[in-house]
């Protein structure tokens, strides 16, 4: 997993609540057996005027000029600003892979759906939940200043704009540690293999029908 320490980048505003993972990456792209290459199809139904598919060349398609990620400078954005319940619906990790592959390193929203939130940490995409009023203020700032850059400091747990501190954010210590160091959490868990085996041995006694 790629490390996340400090990141500065352009903010793209996606001003709608309940953005679901079907919208982030539509189903026809889930037929891939790879975990890369989803970026050009992130938000596909909103991003293009014609329908796409795994065997359709995106270069031959018509981009939707009204969609934020097709507009400069948001096409170079690395921080996505969103509304409530971002990433709801399907568990598809392809949604995180698509955002990552597009170039996003963080998503800021008032709230996230649980599975998307978990998946993000597995891929070095930082989901930051801030108060709705702070998010609202950020939408206003971006609207006044297209190209607004924010700086996210994971170690300090802060979001800043230049020298101005916008907000501090919460994150579980364990997740922060894994993300700062880019740790493979399977390897971490396997360090406790003996404890897992001991649990299994006990469980075989108390609930033998499970084995």
């Amino acid at each position: 997993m790629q490390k996340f320490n400090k990141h500065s980048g352009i903010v793209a505003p996606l001003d709608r609540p309940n953005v679901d993972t079907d919208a982030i990456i539509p189903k026809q792209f889930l037929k891939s057996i790879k975990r890369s290459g989803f970026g050009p199809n992130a938000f596909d139904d909103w991003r293009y005027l014609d329908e796409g598919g795994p065997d359709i060349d995106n270069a031959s398609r018509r981009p939707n000029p009204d969609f934020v990620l097709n507009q400069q400078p948001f096409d170079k954005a690395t921080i996505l600003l969103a509304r409530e319940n971002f990433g709801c619906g399907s568990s598809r990790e392809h949604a995180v892979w698509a955002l990552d592959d597009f170039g996003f390193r963080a998503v800021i929203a008032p709230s996230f759906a649980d599975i998307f939130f978990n998946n993000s940490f597995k891929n070095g995409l930082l989901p930051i939940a801030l108060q709705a009023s702070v998010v609202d203020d950020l939408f206003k700032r971006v609207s006044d200043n297209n190209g607004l850059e924010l700086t996210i400091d994971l170690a300090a747990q802060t979001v800043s704009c230049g020298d101005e501190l916008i907000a501090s954010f919460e994150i579980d210590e364990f997740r922060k540690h894994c993300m700062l160091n880019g740790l493979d959490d399977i390897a971490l868990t396997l360090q406790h293999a003996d404890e897992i085996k001991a649990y299994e041995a006990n469980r075989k006694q108390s609930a033998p029908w499970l084995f």
Partner: protein
Amino acid sequence: MSNRKTLYDKLWDDHVVRTEEDGTALLYIDRHLVHEVTSPQAFEGLRMAGREPWRTGSIVAVPDHNVPTTDRSEGITDPVAKLQVETLDNNCKEFGLTEFDMSDQRQGIVHVIGPEQGATLPGMTVVCGDSHTSTHGAFGALAFGIGTSEVEHVLATQCLMQNKSLNMLVSVDGQVHPGVTAKDIVLAIIGEIGTAGGTGYAIEFGGDAIRALSMEGRMTVCNMAIEAGARAGMVAVDQTTIDYVKGRPYSPTGDNMEKAEAYWSTLHSDDNAKFDKLVHIDAAEIKPQVTWGTSPEMVVDIDSSVPDPEAVSDKVKADGMRKALAYMGLEAGMPISDIAVDKVFIGSCTNSRIEDLREAAAIAHGRQVSDHVKLAMVVPGSGLVKKQAEEEGLDKIFIDAGFEWREPGCSMCLAMNADRLEPGERCASTSNRNFEGRQGQGGRTHLVSPAMAAAAAINGHFTNINELS
């Protein structure tokens, strides 16, 4: 009082292997269900790291999302989908995993076959790379959907790093009126608490109306816990649960069954257990439900009209409603019963079990699908559901009424296979998500119960089933 536990507390505590200082727990997983869409990258990761599955016996795999629901003798024609299904077959062979492949009569939607086989049992932790894994909570199990990285984690370690959720009890008190089904109950719950109302919570569904449900009904309710934002939904174990589980291929027998039953009988929340949030719903108030928008929380009853965003003060919410109305091609104030449908889909992990098909068949019996409906299809949840339905003559009722009778799979719930809506088409669907483009780009989905879907097929527009039956 502090030692009084909720059902969720009990299931959690029984599966904790270890806990980190910040409370993150390593949770043991008893059952791992696998399908073709979210597993290939996990198996590839396992191979690249030189790891083996920790416990192959915990895994049951099945292709369901990509499989055709029409004649399968020619296999899958879409080469990309074919490769994905073959990749699952090959991974299962390579690692020695149980798979019900496309030619197996036990094949079906992963959340239908798990319970059907007895592979889902009370007290288990059940995971799958699919958000509707919450379905299995109907058995008094802790069941939740995971991403592909977590699929790989469970394959490699039999465990997951998890943070405990908060406890929510949704109590549906009293009895529902005739014609009101489990689907209507859960849609009404989502309408009440919102699509993010359960975020951060594990929801236990209780109350007389839930207790009165069959296992099929409880699965429908738990299935849609995720549409209320909760990764896990669950129902306490009772005699209905145990009667359903007994005698299935993976269920315990003999002494083990006696031991298991003794344990399962403890799988309910203790009296006065503490819930972080309590929601009470009056069952008698619930009418047949129809969604009108692009989020499952955008739901009203059949006798209502499409709501007006102008009447909503929250700006973000009102904007969301306007976008939804524009996408759905609806006007505020339009009676729901005036909305005409182009297609009807009866199926999905929410509503494709035998009881669902019986409910729909009872409406279809002796009637004809409206000429205005281009396609009405019934997709059983598994090969075994299909067989049972055919033994009961349900297939004939559907076919005589003008429905198509298909092979099992996820089908038009998410339209990964050929079953889909064309742009602008409107569908009465028994599935779980009315998101934009979910059933095909530009398609418009209205979520309803199986009986309501059958009624929409017959009349060509939404109809209160109590006017038909």
